[in-house]
């Protein structure tokens, strides 16, 4: 304990040189400075708000920036519209047991919507012209026969319903 007190005193003696004058500082002066600091802050906040508003208005008002904003919007909102037709009727009652997975294939550009309709043999329902800002480009795609993804839980369930199991398939049953 004596050592600790000695250490305490030793440090206190050195730190005594850092003792400021007894009445320093004056809180009244400090409060005025703080008020000035707080008052100076508010116009800066207003200035930032005003500058932001000007930038936003300029972005919407000027044709060049508006076009740039529109392009950005298009990139984000609507990139490409694909219409695929799958004839599930072909797969009969077993349609729920699997789903087709299509391969990526090359797109074939066509000049117009009508040409796309002729080529594919059906007329897709497209969004109205207001949704797409630029003139749409059309292309068609021929899908190779899809790979089938089997839904094993549905198959197990169908087997169980028919009185079978994963290892014991009944000779006849319904799905």
């Amino acid at each position, binding site marked *: 304990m004596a050592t*600790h007190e000695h*250490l*305490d005193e*030793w*440090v*206190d003696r*050195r*730190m005594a*040189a*850092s*003792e*400021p004058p007894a009445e*320093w*500082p004056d*809180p009244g002066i*400090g*409060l005025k*400075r*703080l008020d000035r*600091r*707080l008052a100076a*802050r508010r116009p800066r906040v207003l200035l930032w708000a005003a500058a932001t508003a000007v930038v936003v208005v300029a972005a919407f008002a000027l044709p060049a920036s508006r076009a740039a904003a529109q392009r950005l919007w298009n990139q984000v909102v609507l990139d490409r519209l694909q219409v695929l037709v799958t004839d599930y009727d072909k797969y009969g009652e077993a349609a729920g047991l699997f789903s087709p997975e299509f391969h990526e294939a090359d797109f074939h550009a066509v000049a117009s919507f009508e040409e796309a309709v002729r080529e594919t043999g059906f007329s897709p329902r497209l969004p109205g012209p207001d949704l797409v800002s630029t003139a749409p480009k059309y292309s068609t795609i021929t899908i190779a026969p899809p790979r089938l993804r089997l839904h094993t839980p549905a198959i197990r369930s169908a087997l169980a319903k028919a009185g079978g199991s994963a290892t014991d398939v009944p000779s006849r049953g319904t799905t």
Partner: protein
Amino acid sequence: MPADAAAEAFDFEAAFRTHYRRIARVIVRVIHDPSRAEELAIEVFWKLWRHPSAHGPQCGGWLYRSAVRAGVDELRKRARREKYERWFGVAPPPADPEQSRETSEARSRIRTVLASLRSQDAQLIALRAEGLSYEELAEALTLKPTSVGTMLRRAQDAFRKEWVKRYGDA
């Protein structure tokens, strides 16, 4: 009173009048530059004003913690600047003519030693020098009250070792 209600009823000016002098004194003990210490103290209260979560009866601890950190950060910034100035041969600013040479040298030694300590040790030494009790130290530096004594002793020991290494036992 619930914490939110206490924060709503917080009298900022009263808190300023209660703590400002001690906050500025804690900082000046570390950096030994009264006008800069006042600026930093104002900065600390400005931060308190912007942090409603720190408002309330426990704002003292928050203020001391912020003040001593501001002081130690400033001290380290200055130590770095002085080092670079020495490297590039720039003369240090002239000493304050109002201070006696002896006091000025003693303060310079305190600054140097505090700047070389771990941040928490320097904070403990500075706050203790301003007369904060163990409980106040624990609250200000968010330490366990039971371990403040041990940590303070370690900080003092580190302070003495650094001092003796640089200036002898004078």
